[in-house]
């Protein structure tokens, strides 16, 4: 059986006398996990706890089977971490900074140097690698942080708000990089963000936090697969015979004005069969949409539900 990426068992974390995480329990098995939640929801605290920076006051957190508290060192040997805030040594050149971090992770000096160069070129900072990190722009600093997180070839990549302060093209490039890294290896990804698009574009499973509690755990892959079964059509032609024919192959149909039809397709029925039925009945399909039950819907739904549970909107 595959080890879950993250296991939370009644995890409670108190900081400065306040409870930040309230008994989180859940299992996340996907390779790419998104942490979502409004500011102050506890995303960074959860990441810091997984890294062993905070000691749980109750319960436990495990990553790839390693307890964050009792096996912290073993766990951190698998991790590449890109923190949310500024984290660099300003007077060091970019490549030396990454080499330094790679050596601390245990790479021998020569390999660390080689991989530091590779990581810098890979993230697109090849030209700037000999400049002191302190002179980098905000976007470049983010990329340098990513370079130091991947240089030692971790098994888990933890990215805390990676696109913070980046302009749209830089953000797009970073998201592409993250997707490339995910697809090019067996690396596990934990990405924390309050930007739904970042998570939607890179993750398979989402843990939504609110006020230190789990608002929802959602498998985006299954959600996307389920969404494919819901179709919205705009048609022109014999609607009644078309819907009857669709119902005869097992679809559920709801007809609205102006030729709009909503269809729920049963398992085993593919979209091409809908086209075939339409062609047979001489019906034109002017527009076809999958239901867009996006991450935004899931997120808002989770926020509403927990808000109601908390007695708040």
């Amino acid at each position, binding site marked *: 059986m595959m080890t879950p990426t993250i296991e939370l068992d009644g995890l409670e974390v108190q*900081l*400065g*006398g*306040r409870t930040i995480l309230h008994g989180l329990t859940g299992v996340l098995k996907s390779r790419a996990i998104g942490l979502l939640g409004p500011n102050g929801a506890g995303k960074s605290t959860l990441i*810091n706890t997984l*890294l062993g*920076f*905070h000691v749980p006051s109750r319960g436990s957190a495990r990553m790839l089977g390693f307890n964050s508290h009792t096996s912290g*060192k*073993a766990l*951190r*040997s698998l*991790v590449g*971490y890109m*923190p949310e*805030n*500024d*984290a*660099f*040594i*300003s*007077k060091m050149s970019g490549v030396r900074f990454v080499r*330094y*971090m790679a*050596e*601390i*992770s*245990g*790479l*021998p000096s020569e*390999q660390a140097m080689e*991989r530091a*160069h*590779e*990581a810098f*070129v*890979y993230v697109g900072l*090849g030209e700037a690698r000999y400049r002191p990190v*302190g002179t980098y722009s905000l976007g470049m600093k983010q990329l340098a942080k990513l370079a*130091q997180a*991947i240089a*030692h*070839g*971790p*098994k888990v990549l*933890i990215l805390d708000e990676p696109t913070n302060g980046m302009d749209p093209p830089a953000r797009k490039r970073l998201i592409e990089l993250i997707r*490339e*890294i995910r697809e*090019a*290896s*067996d*690396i596990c990804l934990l990405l924390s963000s309050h930007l739904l698009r970042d998570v939607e574009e890179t993750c398979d499973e989402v843990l939504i936090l609110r006020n230190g509690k789990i608002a929802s755990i959602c498998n985006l892959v299954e959600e996307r697969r389920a969404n494919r079964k819901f179709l919205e059509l705009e048609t022109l032609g014999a609607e009644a015979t078309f819907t009857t024919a669709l119902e005869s192959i097992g679809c559920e149909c709801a007809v609205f004005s102006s030729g709009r039809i909503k269809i729920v397709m049963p398992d085993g029925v593919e979209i091409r069969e809908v086209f075939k039925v339409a062609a047979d009945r001489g019906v034109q399909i002017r527009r076809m949409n999958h239901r867009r039950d996006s991450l935004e819907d899931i997120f808002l739904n989770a926020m509403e539900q927990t808000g109601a549970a908390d007695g708040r909107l």
Partner: protein
Amino acid sequence: MAVYKRRYNSYTGSLTPAWSRFFVLTRFAFVDLFKSRFFVLLLILCIVPCLLSAGYIFVANNKTVQLLMQLRSGDFFVVENQYFIVIMIIQAEAAFLLNCWVGPVLIAGDLTNGALPLFLSRPFSRVDYVLGKLAVLGLLLSAVTWIPCLLLFSLQSGLAHDGWIWSHLWMILPMVLCSAIWILMLSLLSLAVSAWVKLRIVATGVIFIIFFIPAGLGEMFNHIMGTYWGALLNFSYMFRIILERGFRDPYRLLDLSGRNEIPVAAAWSALMVVCLLSLVILNARLRARETVRG
């Protein structure tokens, strides 16, 4: 992840032993230090007294040179325990100056831009971090204290008459031990200050303040209360007491207004307390994440 391929690959090569990784910090710090001409100059200046002392030992053991230089042999050319006390004191002061220049930047540079979480998110503990930084000062200050003193001792042993080394072998222990406590105290203190104060000039100032203000307050306390216990706040003086007792100085070379009555254990304790307080500060400051209370 080869450059020409521009593709991510995980690392599958060998790793260095976990226990040795703290030395990466030391190595990188030394590379940075030796880029500074001022540091190199300071280091050379710190070793100059030992070079002069080597010349002195050579002359003291060479009658021909003494005759050539028309110097009269006598008490002036005695190389005994008091001679080594003086050399140790000079080198301890040199170590203090070197420490004031090097120490304040060691941790502050990592804390200024929040690099500490990057160290601690790796299989690298806070103890490893402090050890790595401590090793920088430990090696550097050793290079200007007990190592040159041992070399001088060896030189004297080689040049003096046959029985000298055996009758003075005991001096190696106080030489190493006294240097060790002084180096440990200076290193921990400057690391604690470096973890607290980010600007080098301010941090250097704070180290001077820590050394001289309590010493002055201690003097005031002694005068007002008619005691000598206030000298416990004079760390340099505590070091001298340890040195003097360690080197079995019967003449109390450093005797000043009866303060030599302070037991050597109290002097050791005073320096150990400074070390402990520094560790407490380091423990409080070196956190991957700060916790806001309330």
